[in-house]
């Protein structure tokens, strides 16, 4: 198991009870892929770890990924200082049903995608405009009525954000987002 020393020279002490310096160290967004046994309670363990230790969850997705459904992959996006991110990884690895933890942000180039269903309630000009914008964003129509569309959009989180923002300007909006799924680039297959 790789435990790094203080690789960054300016790494500060972590936020323990006796630290008085306000933590000004840069917080970064990291995407983790966590391979776990697909058993009852495993998601609660992971979520409980984050809430119990005060870590952030920006987004979380989970699904079984093996043919026999024995293993699940949890994608977690979190934000923290270098020390907190290292600690999150170590704490996740300590959970008994966790096989391995990949910090995709550190491990190298990876693909991150998200999917959203966006319902827009609009008529007349706004309705036509929503369709035109959807076309620009390469969103597809998943459902329609005379006064609404449901668009299906996928891509990077920023693209989805921006699309939703546009739609909000055109009418009443309801959003269902999947959260981030991520995988490393290249031909290497992550073992489960």
């Amino acid at each position, binding site marked *: *198991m790789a435990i790094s020393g*203080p690789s960054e020279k300016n790494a*500060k002490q972590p936020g323990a*009870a*006796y*630290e008085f310096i306000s933590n000004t160290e840069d917080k970064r967004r990291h995407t983790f892929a966590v391979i776990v046994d697909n058993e*009852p309670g495993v998601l609660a363990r992971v979520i409980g770890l984050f809430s119990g230790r005060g870590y952030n969850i920006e987004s979380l997705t989970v699904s079984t990924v093996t043919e026999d459904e024995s293993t699940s992959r949890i994608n977690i996006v979190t934000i923290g200082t270098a020390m907190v991110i290292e600690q999150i990884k*170590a704490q996740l690895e*300590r959970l*008994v049903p966790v096989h391995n933890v990949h910090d995709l942000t550190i491990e190298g180039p990876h693909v991150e995608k998200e999917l959203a269903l966006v319902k827009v309630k609009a008529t007349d000009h706004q309705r036509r405009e929503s369709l035109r914008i959807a076309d620009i964003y390469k969103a597809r129509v998943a459902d329609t009525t005379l006064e609404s569309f449901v668009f299906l959009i996928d891509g990077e989180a920023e693209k989805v954000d921006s699309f939703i923002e546009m739609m909000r300007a055109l009418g009443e909006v309801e959003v269902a987002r999947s959260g981030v799924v991520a995988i490393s680039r290249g031909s290497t297959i992550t073992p489960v």
Partner: protein
Amino acid sequence: MSTDAISGAEIVIKALADQGVDVVFGYPGGAVLPIYDALFKQNHIRHILVRHEQGAVHAAEGYARSTGKPGVVLVTSGPGATNAVTGLTDALLDSIPLVCLTGQVPTHLIGNDAFQECDTTGITRPCTKHNYLVKRVDDLEKTMHEAFYVATSGRPGPVVIDIPKDVQFASHDYQGKTNGHHKTYRPQVKADHARIEEAVELLMNAKKPVIYAGGGVINSGPAASQLLTDFVRMTNFPVTLTLMGLGAFPAQDPQFLGMLGMHGTYEANWAMHDCDVMLCLGARFDDRITGRVDAFAPNSKKIHIDIDPSSINKNVRVDLPIVADAAHAMEDLIKVWKSKHKKPSEAALAAWWKQIEEWRSKDCLAYDPEGETIKPQHAIKRLYELTKDRDPLITTEVGQHQMWAAQYFQFEKPNRWMTSGGLGTMGYGMPAAIGAQLAHPEKLVIDIAGEASILMNIQEMSTAVQYRLPVKVFVLNNQYMGMVRQWQELLHGSRYSESYSEALPDFLKLAEAYGWKGVRVTDPADLDAGIQEMIDHDGPVFCEIAVDQSENCYPMIPSGAAHNEMLLGPVQEGEEAIDEKGKVLV
């Protein structure tokens, strides 16, 4: 199903026997009746009936800590499980291997708010190393063996197995003990060799080294303590121990600096602060140890050997992390050390020892034994002097008496000292003493207690009587929750809000009511005789020592201060020991 099928409850008992379990601490109830019935029909496993489930878990902890074997607990659903939660959390924070079996309502009632139902796995998830709900009898045997593997391997901890009543009744055949390994859980025990080489290199070049060892050494087994002792003597390095590590190195040895941390010795804390290379072995840079982290050992290179990767770089950034079991790591470290022709600079080490002796000459644990009242420190010191030849096992409750016990009782060997370090659980000591006494019937087992803590699990006096366990309870009665009072004195202008022990029972009558012998000492002149009377009696003794009410625990690193800012005694009038920022800390 084969003809050899037995009930789930019998599978539980067979698996326990196959795991070498001889004692189970528990309390029956509706949802575990089939297991109690299976217990009744066999003679391999002894069941110890406690008087409260929290007592069962602490007793199992005392058993585990004094033997190195996992402790086993058996409780019912609902309140049985929730009462066990404090003990489980205690075991988690102090890394004590436990397997706790809880009954559960039958599977078809789970989620219906059935009588004595609670979400046991949900409640215990954050306070166990791992837990299981066994919904099918087919999984029961495997789960039992796996639980023992998980509880005892890597960094030990408590594991809960929640067993619905219908699963206890269902039948299945029993395969016999498999190795019980988990599919994927394989803690690393052997250190990376290159890191060991690097550690030796750092230690060889140290001018002011210090070894800081903790409970991980005890958990690793007696061999780890022996290897640590060998290494310390081989190198002539100074060594300090955490509260949980006491006994890992002989306290009488001149190379021992005493305990470190908030109530550690002056020499240990200054050595930590001024060292240039620190070897941390099986300890976790807890906030009681480090004090203010940004001023913790500021000029040192830190080597951290720990079996739990998440303990590394958690509170303090270290320069050389080594993931390994303490004994394995020390073995490798010694091998590499011996292979080198180079030795550390003797002149530098001599200068370092000279400095340490200067700190030691402060005699920070000195107190005035004279006076009309018994000094609590003196009571512990006399207890030590009068019992040391019998190699006693000591447990404690939590508070001032615990710190005095750690400071004034000397431990030469591991597994003699059981205390609630991480969680700080009042009420730990007596049940832990019961567990330790069961494992060591011939030993002298003493719970050093305070009058407030002891009342938190006082009902266990009855358990000691039932099983003829000659445990001794040595209560320092200052009529205060002493540590609370001490902090109120330091932080809250001596406003002793609710910290006075009002309406205490007459402990002599209490002892008598439970069938214990009672001893009370109020005069300093009678102290030795009182202690002698306690240890000479072949049965449980409640020995109450009326001690100086105003005595505080020193030395002390005030909250928010660094190691080199420790207080040796009471602050003078007008001085502030703790600044505003320190006051919010615990």
